[in-house]
């Protein structure tokens, strides 16, 4: 019976899967082949396939510019800070949340802490603008003015942006990232705490000697996965939140914003595709590498 079905179900099931497959083929796989653009001198008159190969010339041009250094430095350093601070904040929230998990407050806390992760970067940019704009922003008019400090032109001064972007990122993501750690803490065997309590360990002791060590596999996995994406950045955070302000590119340019600007504002397909392909390939290697290490730590948590 099942033997007979096996041979007849292939066709219908493939037909059911077809629309999704066609979409993946077009949306994902054709652009993967499109990385050849970075190795060509694209001439739309000839078509992409018939354009002349130019080897690594696009990459040579790209890495000779100062932009390449700035965007790679920014992408890596911001991600590094996001990973470290983001993980610490998420775990801290999770531990505290689990402490009050049964009370009514926990619903309110969770609702408040997750809300920022649901809004678009455009709305975030409005909120940041409400705080930072020079003439009427909250910081300049309600904090600096009473202190007698001259108003700061935030959108023109690069030195403040590393702090601003880190605060915005943590504000937006910490609540949401804590969910996974709350789930992990909920999975810890309660008898371990029971035993610790009988032995007289206080709350703080329990956190450092039980909760944190028990969370280690989850932390390692989340961090490794984040490292896999250390060459990507949230385009909205680095483009829209600083309002695309040219004078602070030094602090806000990442690979993603560079690709957009080179492609759409300069129309430079060679440079933008070189930066994009560099990001894709390094990202791919990093994801594979991260997965390799995850598998060594905990095979069940490896992606593949």
């Amino acid at each position: 019976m099942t033997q007979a079905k096996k041979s007849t179900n292939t066709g219908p099931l493939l037909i059911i899967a077809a629309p999704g497959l066609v979409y993946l083929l077009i949306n994902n796989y054709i652009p993967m082949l499109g990385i050849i653009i970075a190795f060509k001198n694209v001439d739309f008159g000839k078509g992409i396939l018939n354009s002349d190969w130019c080897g690594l010339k696009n990459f040579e041009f790209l890495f000779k510019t100062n932009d390449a250094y700035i965007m790679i430095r920014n992408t890596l350093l911001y991600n590094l800070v996001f990973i470290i601070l983001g993980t610490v904040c998420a775990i801290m929230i999770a531990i505290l949340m689990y402490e009050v998990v049964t009370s009514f407050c926990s619903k309110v806390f969770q609702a408040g802490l997750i809300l920022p992760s649901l809004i678009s970067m455009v709305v975030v940019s409005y909120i940041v603008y409400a705080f930072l704009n020079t003439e009427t922003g909250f910081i300049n008019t309600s904090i600096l003015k009473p202190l007698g400090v001259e108003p700061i032109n935030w959108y023109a001064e690069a030195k403040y942006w590393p702090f601003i972007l880190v605060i915005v990122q943590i504000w937006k993501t910490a609540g949401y990232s804590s969910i996974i750690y709350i789930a992990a803490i909920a999975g810890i065997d309660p008898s371990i705490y029971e035993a610790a309590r009988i032995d007289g360990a206080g709350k703080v002791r329990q956190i450092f000697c039980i909760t944190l060590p028990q969370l280690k596999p989850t932390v390692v996995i989340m961090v490794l996965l984040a490292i896999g994406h250390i060459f990507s950045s949230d385009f909205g955070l680095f483009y829209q939140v600083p309002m695309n302000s040219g004078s602070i590119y030094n602090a806000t340019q990442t690979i993603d914003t560079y690709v957009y600007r080179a492609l759409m504002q300069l129309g430079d397909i060679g440079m933008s595709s070189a930066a994009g392909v560099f990001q894709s390939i390094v990202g791919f290697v990093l994801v594979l590498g991260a997965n390799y290490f995850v598998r060594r730590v905990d095979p069940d948590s490896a992606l593949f």
Partner: protein
Amino acid sequence: MHSTNTSGDRTFKTFAIVFLSLLTVCAFLPFLLIVVTSFTSEKSIVENGYKFLPDRLSFEAYTFMLAQASVIFRAYAVSIGVTAVGTAASMLITTMLAYPMSRADFKYRNVLAFVVFFTLLFSGGIVPSYIMWTRAFHLRDTYLALIIPTYLMSGFNVLMVRNYYKFNIPSALIESAQIDGAGEFLIFFKIMIPLSVPVNVTIGLLTGLAYWNDWINALYYISKPQMFGIQNLLIRMMNNLQFLTSGQANGLVNVAIDIPTNAVRMSMAVIGVLPIVIGYPFLQKYLTKGVVVGAVKG
């Protein structure tokens, strides 16, 4: 779970409540600022800046917005339409691809799983995609450009639905339907789609949120402002408030002068975030579920 009986435990719990209250206030205050300032009189903003406790409240921003309702409603209609069509189409093709992959007796299930999974590992990036969508598919300045690129299907969601079928639907159910003479299409559309409702609520919300919040597709593919959804209208308004009035054929010059610019900006942000706040209780429940269930493997 663990009873709080010692005084140390109680102290810690109090500390947790106080600290989390502070964090929650920090998370929420920025929203309060945009809401309050949207109800502040323009004169008060110009004199004292954006404040949590303004001297004079006013509805002038919203009165002004009401006069420009056609531009705002248009953008809302675009956003709602794109979100509705995109989410529905996404749920359908995601489920259609996920179901065959969940069938243990389907010959190509592992091939499909790899095809889906690989898209999570490697991407060609935006440049080839942009060239393909604009030059081969001519999506520029079409509403399809807001729906099709990037968001229509995510490999992550496909694997989530696949796992849902795999671990929740017994194969005996399919076999008994086959014995009753049902073909694959009938089984899928009459039995499997209705059974997928719980997981489809989660991926529908994730996808709907992504469409509602998206402004990047329009940034790349749309140059006509009248085709903007609410997010891109917000971006445009940040630079140029006059855009709101420029749509009016009788746009008298003095209209522009009276715009309560600072308050209107914030009222636009409120309007942009409103649907999310309204749908929030619902969203929160399923999104937290999605994170925990979403431990997806290839």
